[in-house]
């Protein structure tokens, strides 16, 4: 099972990234669990300085952007 984490304090961009990632994972039929990390101190432990960010199995795939669903599919596949 993939562990997907969305890093962000909860602004509209963070929510949009979470929704798009969920859709991408569902489209791919991936078994996953999603966690939203909203505490800045926890976000900084990933080395991320810009949000929103997408983390897959502990690796930060993208930060500061909300990619399209198709782009997210490539990042989480």
């Amino acid at each position, binding site marked *: 099972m993939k562990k997907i984490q969305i890093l962000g304090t909860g*602004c509209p961009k963070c929510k949009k990234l979470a929704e798009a990632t969920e859709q991408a994972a569902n489209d791919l039929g991936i078994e996953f669990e999603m966690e939203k990390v909203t505490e800045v101190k926890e976000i900084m432990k*990933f080395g991320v*300085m810009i*949000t*929103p960010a997408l983390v897959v199995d502990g690796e*930060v*795939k993208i*930060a*500061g952007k909300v990619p399209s669903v198709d782009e997210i599919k490539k990042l989480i596949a």
Partner: protein
Amino acid sequence: MKEDKCCCSGGVTTILACSGGSNVGQITNEVAKRLDMAGVGKFFCLAGIGGRVSGMVASVEGSDTVLVIDGCPVACAKKTMESAGLDKYRYVVVTDLGIEKVHDFRLSKEDVEHVMSICLAAVKGSSAVEVPSEA
């Protein structure tokens, strides 16, 4: 990331300095600190790029503007960026500005302010941003 600020709003400028073991290396560090404190950009850890910390690399990739400051033509910061596949940045080399590299950490205020003005121009296209005169 400031504790009380969301960083989703865009327009993010990141600053990476070689922070090396010479006067010019430490000038890059001092200038990067001051630019951060002045709100011009965020001072990032170049070591995080060298260590391939995924969050650091992704943060630089996601920045709108990136400024890399090297102290000398050895170009450690530039090489670190390029080895991580990061090639979109504005670039300043302190020795190119007429400052000689020596192993002396007593930094000249004039040198720091000169490099600061060049870096501001590199980021903003002007030196109109007010910055603190002391560290």
